[in-house]
Each structure stands twice: as structure tokens, then as C-alpha cells.
């Protein structure tokens, strides 16, 4: 029998049910990796509208797939829980704040005529992108009480900075964004896969 637990421990356990299967790692990794295809599509001279549709379609497929896996694989093992309105509201407000911040970054870049996908010489494009991912991932780690997301944030930032460095050396194109995205996303997907494997081993489906 588990000993009685304190509210912080309860909250930690509740958050654990959300991320312990590793699917959130996989989703975050796929989103970051997908980000890398945008400059590649730009290089093909594709219509920007078509490019956006492709990017958003990939994003939608990833989100729907992971949600389906959550329902098909995770829920039968961990059960279902609906968080309290207070907790759900708090998480929603934090996510809204993050999305607003990112929207403002893109809006400001448009207003000040920054082109996010074109070569601006010394403008270190990968760095603010890496910073945005760092903020997103560390925020996720703070909400979910999952310390590995802090590490993901640092890793992604470091990889993007590395990509910008090699771009400045003339080794990579597009500010090193595609290889940085694929590498960072790939590592997170792999990590998520390992967590998922361990999760499936630890929690067989309750046939009772």
C-alpha cells in the first residue's frame, strides 16, 4: 500500500501520467524536425502558400498520430484522468502565454521587415529560433515537472547555435536550420521512443 502523499507529490504523479510514455518527447521532436523542411521547401522556389500548407499538414498529422497513440496505447495502461479545472486553467494560461509570445515574435519580425527565411548576412537566425525552442521546452518541463525537457531545451539551443556557427563558416546553408532541426528533433524522437519502450514494458495492459 502506498503511504499517504502530499499535494505536490500528487501533482507530480498526475503530470507523470502525461509524459511518462515518452509520446510528448516524440511529438516535440517531430515538430522541431518538421520545422527544418521549411527552408528546404523555400529553396525549391515553391509558392509560400503551398509551403505553409505542407508544413501545417505535417504538423497536423503528427499531432493527430500522437493523440491516437495516447488513446490506443497509453490510456489502457495508465487509465484516464481529467485534471481539476484549476490545474487545467493554469496549464492553458501558460500555453496561451507561450503561444502569444511566439506570435508576437513573428509579428514584430513582420512589422520590422525581418525575413525569417532569407539570408540576412550576419543576422544569426538560428539563435532566436533556438531560443524560442529553449523557452518552449523548458516551460513544458516546468509545467509537467519533467526535468528531461530542460535538457532538451539546452540541447536544441546548443545544436541550433552550432548550426549557425557552421553556416558562418560556409559549411552549411539556410543558417544551418535544416540539419539542426533534423538532428535535435531526431534525438528527441529517439529519447521518446526509449521512454515509450520502457513504459510498455513496465505497464502491461490490465486485462482484468
Amino acid at each position, binding site marked *: *500500500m502506498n503511504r499517504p502523499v502530499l499535494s505536490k507529490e500528487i501533482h507530480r504523479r498526475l503530470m507523470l501520467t502525461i509524459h511518462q510514455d515518452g509520446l510528448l518527447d516524440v511529438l516535440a521532436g517531430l515538430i522541431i524536425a518538421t520545422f527544418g523542411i521549411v527552408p528546404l521547401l523555400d529553396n525549391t522556389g515553391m509558392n509560400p502558400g503551398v509551403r505553409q500548407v505542407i508544413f501545417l499538414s505535417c504538423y497536423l498529422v503528427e499531432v493527430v498520430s500522437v493523440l491516437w497513440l495516447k488513446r490506443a496505447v497509453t490510456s489502457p*495502461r495508465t*487509465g*484516464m484522468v481529467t485534471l481539476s479545472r484549476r490545474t*487545467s486553467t493554469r496549464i492553458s494560461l501558460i500555453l496561451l502565454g507561450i503561444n502569444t509570445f511566439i506570435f508576437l515574435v513573428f509579428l514584430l519580425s513582420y512589422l520590422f521587415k525581418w525575413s525569417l527565411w532569407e539570408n540576412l548576412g550576419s543576422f544569426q537566425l538560428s539563435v532566436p529560433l533556438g531560443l524560442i525552442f529553449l523557452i518552449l521546452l523548458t516551460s513544458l518541463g516546468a509545467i509537467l515537472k519533467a526535468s528531461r525537457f530542460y535538457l532538451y531545451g539546452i540541447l536544441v539551443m546548443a545544436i541550433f547555435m552550432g548550426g549557425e556557427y557552421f553556416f558562418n563558416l560556409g559549411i552549411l546553408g539556410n543558417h544551418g536550420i535544416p540539419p539542426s532541426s533534423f538532428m535535435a528533433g531526431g534525438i528527441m524522437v529517439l529519447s521518446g521512443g526509449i521512454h515509450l519502450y520502457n513504459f510498455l514494458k513496465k505497464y502491461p495492459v490490465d486485462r482484468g
Partner: protein
Amino acid sequence: MVEQIDKTIHEPGRLLILIYLFSVEKADFTFLKMQTGMTQGNLSSHLQKLEAAGYISTEKKFRNKRPLTLLKITDMGRESFRNYVTEMHHYFKELFDMVR
């Protein structure tokens, strides 16, 4: 006094169940079983007692042809849990002053 403690809530297993149900909107049987570490029979027994006392409500339905039992603490259960925690706080405060 001690004999006035709500014994339905005071049992460790049922107390743990109510702690979880107090913290969430609702949860299913599998979630509670996983979190409390109880066997299916033990958990069912405690849930029956809590439901009989009016502290929780159950909703049974099917999802993908599998039975799904959703549990939720009632307003009465929430109020009783708060009263229990407040009373225990007073008791242990007095006990602590006594043994110091």
C-alpha cells in the same frame, strides 16, 4: 473527540482514494488502481463503501468495447474530506502539544 472521526474516510486505502479524487475532476478505475497500488478487489471494495457513504459517484460506460468506470468525488464527499482534514489537523496539533 477521536470517536467522532469519520471512519469511512479514515481508513488508509479510502483516504488515499479520496486524496486523488479530491485533486482531479474525475478518474477511471484503472488510473486509481495504478496510482494506489491496490488490487482490483480491494479497490472495488473501498469504492463501494465510499459510494455507499455518498462521497463518490460512479459512471459506467463502454469505450472501444471495453468497460470504463469513471469516478468523481461528490460535493458531499468534498465537504466531508475538508472537514476530516481540518479535524485531523486540530487533533494532531493538540497531540503534538501534549507530547512535546
